[in-house]
Each structure stands twice: as structure tokens, then as C-alpha cells.
């Protein structure tokens, strides 16, 4: 324990010693990784790890250049300059947290796995930042950005990743399944699309209780094949519920290509079957995502009913961090890295003079400090008592129930 603390202090105080840190990480990756079956072996392994690190560095370089054809244009309807900057900060915060957690996982600092969202952040953060705190979010397991976008402190999210007592669920549920009761982000289920149905129920509740709230549900392209996609959308259409359904089409359902999930080209066309609007957009174009989600939220809040938004996007890394994602071609990944939503948004903010010189660096510095603080908080948060999961099976007591006796 003492040794660990020293290590952490060293890393924190010695940002100039990144070389040393990198070296110790490489060592951890070579010898001490807990990611079972994480990577290919032998000479390939070295290449794979180097490629991962290069891409992580690219991901963190949000001011980097990109092909002109991906330059953004237009205007974010109704967004103040302050909102545009705050949105950028939450996008950067999501990415920095994600990349940091990937490294910590490879070092074996927490158990389980990590579901990286790098590449898809705009699909989450842009809609989440527009919500009221009491609006309901039904995320899936990859929606870090929904939580960061809605303003959940990184400390709670880091403790969730580490399964520590300061996690909202005290470490009893599942790492990386971010949620927070005060921010009305529900706990995602690992079983696909339960959140879709629950968010539909929340929207029903808002309508029945005559509350001025909306619900947002997130799912992936693979999830549209699940029966609950249909049952939720269909019911919301019939009852004109205040909900926005977001499909992040990242082309791969774990290892399954989109062509084996559906014969439909644009997933938003499915909305036709439910009697509400559907729209397909570039999920890596922050302006397009802002405008589409803003309209959908207005529609939902004014009682006009649901909207289905398909956001075409890409996850740079594997389904989880023990997945080398070798079912995809390098060309495909590289192409999508060029379409990274963050540099495109940064460039647009600079062109429109919303983002001032030096402001991005300051922001990154601030975000990194916040991420480090959150990690420190999580690492210092105690591991849960071994038997602390034995409570809260029921709300009430029953004469025959005895959790230890097993009856």
C-alpha cells in the first residue's frame, strides 16, 4: 500500500518525468497486465501496444490537423459562446478521463475491464449538456460522455471504474457502468436495451405525472436488432412520449459488422415504423449533433413526441480493453481517426474566434488536473467490505428471509 502511494505521488508531482512513467507503463504492459487475453503475443504484441499508444496520443491531441473535407460549417442554433466553450471542455474531459483509464487498466490498477468511448464522445456529451438535471438519461455501458456531459463529478465516475466504496453503488455493481442518482443518469444494464425500455417508462412517468421533463435513451447499432428496441419505440410512438432515442452507429456490434445486424442503410428509417421522425447525421460533427438534438429535445419537451436520431460514428478501440479489435481493417480505423469530432470542433471554434489563443491549453491543463484528482480520490477510496453486498436485497424485512442462511 505504501509503495503504491509513493508511486502515485511520484507520478503526480513529476509531470516532467513522463518518460519514466511511460517506461513503467510499458513494463506493466509487458509483464503485469491483468487484461486476460488482451493482446497478441510475440513480436506482434509490441506492434499492437505501440499502435494503441500512438492512437491514444492522437486522441489527446485535440488541436491536431485533419483533412479539409471534414471541416465544420454552419452554426449551433441558440448556443452562446459560453455554452460552446463549456461543451468543448466536457468533450475534452470525457476524452482525457477515458484515455487515462485505458492506461491505468493496462497497468492493472483496477479489475474488470474498461469500455473506451474514444471517438464517439460528441454523440453523448452534446445532448447531455442540454438537459436539465432532473431530465432522465438511460445510457448503455459505453456512455461515459452522457455522465460527463450531464455534469457528474469525475470522482464518482472514477470510483465507479475502481469499484470502490465511493462509487454510487458502493462497488457492488459493475465497473464502468456509470450512473448517478442526483444527476438522473440511470444505471445501465449490461444486458442490452434494458435502459431503452426503462427510459421509455421514465418518459411515460413524466407524462402521467405532468412533469416538464424529458428522457433520453442511448443504444448502439447492434442494439437495434433487439426486440426491446422495437417494444420501446413502438410504445413511445403510440403514447407520444417525451423522449429522444439516440443510436450511436459505430459500425460494429462488438465484433459484428453492421451488414450482419441489419439490411437497412440508415437506421433512422426505422422511425417510420413508429410514426415519429427519424434523422441520420454525422455523429462526429458537433454542430450537426447539436442542432438535431436541440430540435428533438424541443419536440419532446413541448409534447410533440419522440425522435430517433442515428449518429454515425466510430469507436477507435476494442469493444472493451481486452478486445484487440482485430476484426477491423487499419484503413477503416485511420479513416475514422481523421474524422475525430474533437479537432473538427476545435478548428471551428478557432475559425469563429470563440476559442481564443492559449485557451485550449489552459483547458487541457485544468481538465488533466481534474482527472488526476479524480483518480487519486478513487485510489484512496476504500475497497468495499467483503460482505457489504449482503444488504439492500429488499426494502422491507420478511420473517423468513435470512440472507446468510440462504432462505
Amino acid at each position, binding site marked *: 500500500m505504501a509503495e503504491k502511494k509513493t508511486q502515485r505521488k511520484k507520478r503526480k508531482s513529476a509531470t516532467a518525468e513522463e518518460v519514466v512513467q511511460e517506461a513503467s507503463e510499458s513494463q506493466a504492459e509487458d509483464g503485469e497486465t491483468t487484461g486476460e487475453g488482451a493482446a497478441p503475443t510475440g513480436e506482434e504484441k509490441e506492434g499492437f501496444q505501440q499502435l494503441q499508444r500512438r492512437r491514444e496520443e492522437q486522441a489527446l491531441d485535440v488541436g491536431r490537423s485533419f483533412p479539409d473535407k471534414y471541416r465544420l460549417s454552419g452554426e449551433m442554433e441558440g448556443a452562446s459562446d459560453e455554452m460552446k466553450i463549456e461543451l468543448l471542455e466536457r468533450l475534452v474531459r470525457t476524452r482525457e478521463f477515458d484515455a487515462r483509464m485505458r492506461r491505468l487498466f493496462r497497468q492493472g490498477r483496477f479489475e474488470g475491464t474498461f469500455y473506451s468511448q474514444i471517438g464517439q464522445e460528441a454523440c453523448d456529451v452534446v445532448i447531455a449538456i442540454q438537459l436539465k438535471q432532473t431530465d*432522465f438519461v*438511460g445510457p448503455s455501458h459505453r456512455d461515459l460522455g452522457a455522465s460527463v456531459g450531464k455534469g457528474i463529478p469525475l470522482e464518482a465516475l472514477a470510483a465507479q471504474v475502481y469499484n470502490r466504496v465511493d462509487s*454510487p*453503488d*458502493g462497488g*457492488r*455493481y459493475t465497473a464502468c457502468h456509470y*450512473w448517478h*442518482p442526483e444527476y438522473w443518469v*440511470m*444505471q445501465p*444494464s449490461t*444486458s442490452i436495451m*434494458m435502459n431503452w*425500455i*426503462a*427510459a*421509455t*417508462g*421514465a*418518459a*411515460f*412517468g*413524466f*407524462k*402521467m*405525472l405532468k*412533469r416538464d*421533463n424529458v*428522457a433520453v435513451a442511448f443504444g448502439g447499432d447492434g442494439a437495434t436488432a433487439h*426486440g*426491446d428496441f422495437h*417494444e*420501446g419505440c*413502438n*410504445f413511445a410512438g*403510440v*403514447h407520444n412520449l417525451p423522449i429522444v432515442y439516440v443510436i450511436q452507429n459505430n459500425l460494429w456490434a462488438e465484433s459484428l459488422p453492421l451488414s450482419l445486424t441489419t439490411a437497412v442503410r440508415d437506421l433512422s428509417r426505422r422511425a417510420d415504423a413508429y410514426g415519429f421522425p427519424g434523422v441520420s447525421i454525422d455523429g462526429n460533427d458537433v454542430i450537426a449533433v447539436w442542432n438535431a438534438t436541440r430540435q428533438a429535445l424541443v419536440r419532446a419537451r413541448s409534447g410533440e413526441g419522440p425522435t430517433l436520431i442515428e449518429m454515425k460514428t466510430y469507436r477507435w478501440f476494442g469493444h472493451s480493453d481486452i478486445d484487440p479489435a482485430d476484426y477491423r481493417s487499419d484503413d477503416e480505423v485511420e479513416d475514422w481517426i481523421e474524422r475525430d469530432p474533437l479537432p473538427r470542433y476545435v478548428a471551428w471554434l478557432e475559425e469563429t474566434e470563440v476559442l481564443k489563443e492559449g485557451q485550449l491549453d489552459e483547458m487541457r491543463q485544468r481538465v488533466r488536473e481534474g482527472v488526476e484528482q479524480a483518480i487519486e480520490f478513487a485510489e484512496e477510496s476504500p475497497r468495499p467490505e467483503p460482505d457489504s*453486498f449482503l*444488504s*439492500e*436485497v*429488499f*426494502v*422491507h424485512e*420478511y*420473517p*423468513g*428471509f*435470512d440472507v446468510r442462511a440462504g*432462505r
Partner: protein
Amino acid sequence: MATITYIDAINRTLHEEMARDETTFLIGEDIGIYGGVFKATRGLLEAFGPERVVDSPISESLIAGMTVGAAMVGCRPLPEIQFADFISPAFDQIVQQLARYHWRTNGTYAMPVTIRTPYGGGVGGGVFHSQSNEAWFMNVPGLVMVAPSTVRDAAGLLRAAIRSDDPVLYWEHKKLYRSIKDDLPDGEEVVTEIGRAHVAREGSDVTAITFGFLLHQTLKAADALAEDGIEVEVIDLRTLLPLDTPTVLESVARTGKAVVIHEAPKIGGIGGEIAAILAEECFWELDAPIRRLTGFNTSFPAAKSMEDYYMPDVDDIADALRTTAET
């Protein structure tokens, strides 16, 4: 004082509780305009309107699963699964989400949801309208299951379930809907405590443990055996999960003999769980092997002749009790 049927008791309690609590709502197939396939929800649409009495599409997963989000934002949902045989599409939502959500969220959210569902044989319904499939849910942590056997408990357990903050699966027996009547005083708010079994008949020679329609068959068998001097204690479980182990143990420790009777197949049924608890905690008090009298490990048959053979009847129950008592 009014003499009402089991289904009247359910209908009346739904009316009373929905009037009492504006956060309650019903959702299910054919429950509104049609008043339910058995008319359990008759008149509720007229009384509470389409916002609170929701005729759902044929979407059992939605019916069960939407209650989680609705409960989180402050509703007290009362979903109906039209037949217990149709509950399997809702299984995932019930066992993985609804039942576990309180635990998963470290006690942050309660799930005050009561799922009513008609079950049981003896009505000529064939395999999809006759099953007693409560055992599918027996090892689901966080789920409560009640199965009223009497008119009074149909009202009392439903009221307790609706007011409970735990998710309750409420099994209503189709064969009892209109075959039993009782006097329930108007305006009396009958509440039956969840988790407590009821000793329906006291006896000293053997304990019969059962619920639902078979409670009534067992009581008839006990009457018959009494004429031969065999005194049967009959326990009506009322709550199936968590089982009222103290009541069962107390009785069996006294009689030394136990027979568990249910409609469901024997393998993996509730009878096995009860037998295991008795073997673990009451072994030295036993004077005879624990016996289980159940449906067969087949699907539920349709033809009347087969159905009669499948269901334990009064003679079967009397034989089982007599054999055990005389061991």
C-alpha cells in the same frame, strides 16, 4: 357486508388503491376497454382514464420493463401479464432489472411495482393458459412473490403488494376467480402481511404445505382424513418468496411429518426448496420422509381427461397425507 368472489376482491382493491394513490397506474394487454380477459380490471378505465389505465401493445418486455423507469421518477406501477404463461418475454426485465435494481443501486431506488398475473390449471386452457410457473422465479434475489388462496387474501395481499416498496409478483389463480366467495365488509381495508403463511387448519399428525387452488383440495382431503382420525395441519403459504420458514418449521417440528403439494412440476419446484429447508433445519424432528405431491414433469395437457390426471386431486392428496401420516 358484501359477499364477493376472488376476482371481485382483486377488482375492488384495484379501484380502492388507485383512488387512494394518484401515482399508481395499470398497464397490460386488454385491461382497459375490454376490462381484462377475465374482467379483473373492469371499470378501471372509466374510473381513472386512459393515462392511468393503459391498454398496452402485445409487448410483455415493455410492460414489465417500463415500470423500472416509471418507478424511478415517482410512479407506483401495476402491470398485468395477461397469463403467467406469457411472462417469459418479460423474464429478462423482471429478473435482471426490476428485482435487482434496489440492490444494484446500493439501496438508492425502491421498485414499488406489483405485477399481477393469472396462473394455474383446472380451466381447460392447455399448456399456454394453465401453468403454475412460479418456480421459474424462485432463485431471483430481490423479488417477492405472493399467491392468495382465499377471497380475503386476494384483497389483503394485493393491497399489501401495492403499498409495498419491493417488487411483488402477484399470482392469481384462475380456477379461484369465481369459484370461491367470502364476506368482505364494505370499506374495510383488508391488509395481509407479506411474508406470513397462514395455518388454515390445525392438526397434529402431519403438516400439509400448499397454496392456491390446491389449498381448497387439501382442506377437503383433511376433512376426509379427520373421519379416520388423522389430524392434518394445513399451511397456506400465501407468500412464496421469501418463504415463511419459521411457520413451516414450527409446524413440522410439532407434527414430525410434511407433505408439500403444488401444481407445478416436481423438479426444481417450490416443494424441493421447502423439503431442503426442512432437511437442513428440522431433520431430527422428522418422523417420516418428506413427500412432494405435484404436477408431472411434462407440459400441461389440454384434454379434460389428461388435465384431471395431471392435477393432484382430493383423493391423490388424501392418499399422500395418509401414507405419510401412517409411516
